[in-house]
Structures are given as C-alpha cells and as structure tokens.
C-alpha cells in the first residue's frame, strides 16, 4: 500500500510537470489574442494556445484523479501557488515580441515533438493515451513555429536581429528540458517515461538544422543553464502570470460561463 502511494505521488508530480508546461505556455500564447501582428497570425496563435491549454486540462484532470484528494483540473490550475507549479521557467517568461514568442514555441515544440511519441508508449496507459492524442497537434505547432523561424531569420535585417536575440536570450532556459532527477529515474525504471536527456542529441540536431537554414547562429551550448522550475523555484514572472490567470476563479469560486 505504501509503495502504491509513493508511486501515485510520483506520477502526480510528473503529470504536473507535463500539464504545467502546457498550461503556462498556453497562457502566454493566449496573451497575443487581439494583439497579433496580423489577424491570420492572431488566430493561429490563439489556436495553438487552445491546443496547449486543452492538453493541460486533460493532464491536470488525470493528475487530480491520481492524487485522489478530490481536486479537479480547475482546482489545480487556479488554486495552486507559484511554488506548487512544476513548469519549465522558459514557459513563464513574458511573451516579448513576436520573434521571442515564436522562438520559445519552436524550442519547446521540438522538445515536445520528441517526447510525446515516447510517452505514447508509456506503461502507464492513461498517460500514453493523452500523449498519443497530443501528437498531431504538436506536429502542427512545430511546423508553424519552424516556418516562422525560417522567415524571420532569413527575412529583413530587423526580423533577423530580433529572432537571433530571442534565441540567445532563451538558450539558457533550454537545459531544464533535459534535466534528469530522482523522479524521472524512478519513472524510467517503471517504464512510465524515458530519460529526457536521451532526447537531447536529436533535439539539438532538429533545432540547429532549422536555425542554420534560417541563416541564424546557434547559441553557444556551454553557457550557464537555468534550473528550478521542476522544483517550484520560478522566476518572478510566474506570480504575475498567475495573478492574472487565476483572479477570476479566485474572486468568484465555482463561477460558470
């Protein structure tokens, strides 16, 4: 029984990582709604935001069931504090300019593109099912952001400069995607997930292919890498994001619309 409890706690924790990445990056994308550079792109970003938030909803629902304390997806999304969130710090950084949003989406989508097919083979079937469901959406997210990296990088001097700056600024947050810790090790042993560090060589190849095609420079890989999101140690930006995201649910608990 105790072993089962420990196992459920591990799975809960891991599901929060997956869900919070998508919830937070989805929220950042949703901030473009009504502010896109052109109406078609406004719709595209809102679509991707909805995909991410939808995936997060399903994962949080599952997490709540695993936890078994009666918390649903809304409780987990709206009534946790920043310190309880397990997302990558990269996801919570302010949306910046269009180049920054696209660069973040590109780096993250490439990672997710490699991770989801592995999770679709997870021995934990509810997770496998969720991962399989997200695959196609994610392929589109990667296609959308890759095409924009190519056009911004190989576009005007200004667009080139902006997307290069964005990649340089984001690079120190990419290490977190491939961190290996005790939790991951335990779940790898149980066949529930894979070592994310093993995805890194292919991720780097995918990312650097597009970056060089876009006439951009791959940032140096030996720089200092940020860490902490998976343990609830976030940047100051997450609190501000949550205050906006959670205010309605906290002001009017159980509000329906």
């Amino acid at each position, binding site marked *: 029984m105790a072993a089962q409890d420990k196992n459920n706690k591990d799975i809960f924790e891991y599901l929060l990582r997956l869900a919070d990445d998508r919830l937070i990056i989805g929220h950042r994308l949703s901030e473009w709604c009504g502010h896109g*550079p*052109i*109406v*078609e*792109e406004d*719709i*595209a970003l809102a*679509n991707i935001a909805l995909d991410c938030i939808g995936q997060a909803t399903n994962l949080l629902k599952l997490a709540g069931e695993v936890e078994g304390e009666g918390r649903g997806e809304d409780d987990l999304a709206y009534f946790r504090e920043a310190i309880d969130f397990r997302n990558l710090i990269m996801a919570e950084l302010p949306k910046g*300019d269009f180049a920054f949003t696209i660069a973040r989406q590109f780096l993250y989508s490439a990672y997710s593109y490699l991770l989801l097919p592995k999770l679709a083979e997870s021995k934990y079937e509810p997770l496998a099912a969720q991962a399989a469901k997200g695959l196609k959406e994610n392929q589109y997210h990667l*296609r*959308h952001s890759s*095409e924009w990296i190519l*056009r911004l990088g190989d576009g005007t001097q200004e667009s080139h400069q902006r997307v290069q700056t964005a990649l340089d600024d984001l690079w120190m947050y990419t290490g977190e995607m491939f961190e290996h810790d005790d939790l991951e090790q335990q779940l790898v042993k149980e066949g529930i997930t894979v070592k994310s560090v093993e995805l890194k060589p292919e991720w780097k190849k995918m990312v650097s292919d597009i970056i060089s095609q876009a006439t951009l420079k791959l940032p140096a890989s030996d720089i200092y890498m940020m860490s902490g999101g998976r343990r609830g140690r976030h940047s100051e930006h997450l609190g501000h994001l949550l205050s906006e995201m959670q205010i309605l649910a906290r002001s009017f608990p159980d509000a329906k619309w």
Partner: protein
Amino acid sequence: MEEKALDTQWPLWEVFVQHKTGQPHEHAGSVHAPDEEIALQNARDVYSRRGEAVSIWVVPANLITASSPSDSGPFFDPSNDKIYRHPQFYKVPRGVKNL
C-alpha cells in the same frame, strides 16, 4: 513597445476547401500571407479549425482571371434565348434506354 501600423498588407490568397474526399474544392474565403506555405497554414487556421476539411488549395488572388460584372449581359444572357441549348428542348424517344 513600438507598434507601427502596417503600411503594407501581405498578398491576398483565395482559399478552396474540400470537405470530403471526392467532392470538389469549394471557395471558402481568403487570407493574407507572405507566401504559399504560410497561406496554407493561415487557411487551415481560419477555415478548417474544427476539422471541416480534408484538403485545402490556396491560390494567389491576383492570378485569378474573373469575368467582369458589366459583361454579365453579353456573357451569360444569350443562352437563355436559345431554348435548344436546354435539355428540356429535346424529347427523348420512347425506346431509348441508358440515356
């Protein structure tokens, strides 16, 4: 944040959506996009986001040659005067099968 109004629009693309395999592509509307790949993506987001499509065509709007409204008289009317152009003009002989 400096936000300048766009002084140039991207080129316009006409979008044709096929709802089922075997059916014709039907005109759905138009999108702006810098090139054909982005035009396809935009068309997908604007016209098939709820899975209404199995295939999409995008065509640069300036490559479409259209009849002009002022032509509509000389262009389309004559066929109505000539009843022999309509199938109802012809009586089908009784013995004809497989028509």
